[in-house]
């Protein structure tokens, strides 16, 4: 068990006119090597929740454990926690500041106390993982395209070699090609490096293809926490809270209603293809 949240509550500006109860009694366990999709519409508390996972925001009430240790305990090394739980914020390209891409990616490892050579080595490795080749090393990060900037910023967190990588809407504002590239690279990281990944998104479509487990947030509470199949069965309830199941789910349900013997729990296009073909073959 790498991260565990117990009865976490968080209130913004408590006891003022602007009080917001952002998280309500959240209980969550994130296991080693999992690939989790954290889903909720705007203002559901998902961004607040992920900031609890590396101690950037302290819960108003409740506990967060990392490898069984209470991170709010006196003397707990927060800096170390943050290098083991990497958090990529929304629009991470807004945090780029160095003169060239390589130095920017080195910022994290250097803060971990690594030497210049070690940091550069890690940076190069991270840049390779996100698909930025050597020609970009000495370019100013501000001259890159939107998708390249985003990848450079993700590399900045990856270079710290975290055990858990949290990405807050990593595909926001990218075109479909850029979105698929980034998601494929994240998925490869999970497969090859065995990094635990928490992917925050409001799009079921994005996550259905990759994750093994979906946590749905609604108004600061965990609404569902299950495999994609199980969660998408509640597609009507999801619609009520402003979310939607992948289009495949709707199509499968529509086909089922028309009398086709398809598996309505198919969540990806590949699964859908297989079950449709199967049902058609059955008819012939």
């Amino acid at each position, binding site marked *: 068990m790498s991260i565990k949240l117990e009865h976490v509550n968080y209130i913004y*500006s408590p006891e003022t*006119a602007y009080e917001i109860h952002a998280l309500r009694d959240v209980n969550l366990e994130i296991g080693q090597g999992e690939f989790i999709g954290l889903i909720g519409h705007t203002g559901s508390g998902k961004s607040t929740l992920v*900031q609890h996972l*590396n101690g*950037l925001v302290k819960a108003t009430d409740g506990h967060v454990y990392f490898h069984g240790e209470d991170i709010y305990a006196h003397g707990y090394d927060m*800096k170390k926690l*943050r*290098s083991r739980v*990497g*958090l990529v*914020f929304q629009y*991470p390209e*807004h*945090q*780029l*500041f160095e003169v060239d891409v390589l130095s920017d990616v080195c*910022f*994290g490892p250097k*803060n*971990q106390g690594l030497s210049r050579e070690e940091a550069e080595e890690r940076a190069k490795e991270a840049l390779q993982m996100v698909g930025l080749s050597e020609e970009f090393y000495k370019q100013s990060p*501000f001259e890159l395209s939107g998708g390249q900037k985003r990848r450079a910023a993700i590399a*900045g*967190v990856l270079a*710290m070699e975290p055990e858990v990588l949290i990405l807050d809407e990593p595909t926001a504002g990218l075109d479909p090609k850029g979105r698929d590239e980034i998601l494929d690279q994240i998925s490869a990281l999970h497969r090859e490096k065995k990094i635990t990944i928490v992917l925050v998104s409001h799009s079921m479509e994005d996550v259905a293809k990759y994750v093994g487990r979906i946590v749905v947030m609604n108004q600061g509470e965990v609404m569902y926490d299950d495999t994609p199949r199980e969660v998408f069965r509640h597609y009507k309830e999801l619609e009520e809270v402003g979310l939607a199941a992948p289009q495949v789910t709707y199509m499968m349900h529509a086909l089922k209603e028309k009398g086709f013997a398809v598996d309505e729990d198919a969540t990806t296009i590949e699964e859908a293809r297989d079950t449709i073909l199967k049902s058609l073959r059955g008819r012939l």
Partner: protein
Amino acid sequence: MIRDITLGQYYPADSILHKLDPRVKLVTTISFLVALFLVNSWVGYVVATIFLVSVIRLSKVPFPFMVRGLKAIFLILMITVVFNLFLTPGDRVLVHFWKLQITDKGLRTAIFMAIRLVYLIVGSSVMTLTTTPNDLTDGMERLLGPLKKLHVPVHEVAMMMSIALRFIPILLEETDKIMKAQIARGADFESGNLLQKAKSLVPLLVPLFISAFRRANDLAMAMEARCYRGGEGRTKMKPLVYARRDYLAYGTVMIFLAVIIAVRIVL
């Protein structure tokens, strides 16, 4: 942490003060500040206190918000009081120790100065708490309107002010976000000596400036796209028109000023 900074913090409430024309509130605040410097007797301060307390009661803003602004000037206030208390020569020495002495005049000046400063801050807080920054710049623009004849770019200055005010909370939020993002990458903004601290601000300031420029660019583009071309012939969505309560307020302020001046002349 960063949200604690108050700057022209508007407190929404439904009071007569909130409804008043911003021009009235500006003129009242200026009159009140002038009155504070005219006052030089206990009677005058009693009149000013009655005025201020009734205005605060009318505003329906909780009292703690009024005195929040005092925190910022606490040091200046203390220095003023201490200097006036010990360094004013007077006729009668009240307390004498070592090389310092407190005279009757010193005590009087110190108290008056303290009251003056506190009232100054609280008085202007009443205005900023009951008026949105936009209304305030609107009011200023209209009040300074005559300066246009002297080719002072009143509208442009007012527009710049309202844009600047509008961007303060946005930039604060942005600062908070970038700070968190860099802390997540292991940045340390707290420890180290002055030089190290200054250096550690680079990862915060560079992205912040870039985002400020980007926002400025976007805003300029959006304004041009909507054919903004300055104040000439521009109409308002909510034009400022005096209502009956505004004339009443002006009357009250005139009476207040008259009383203050009368007290000053008579006593």
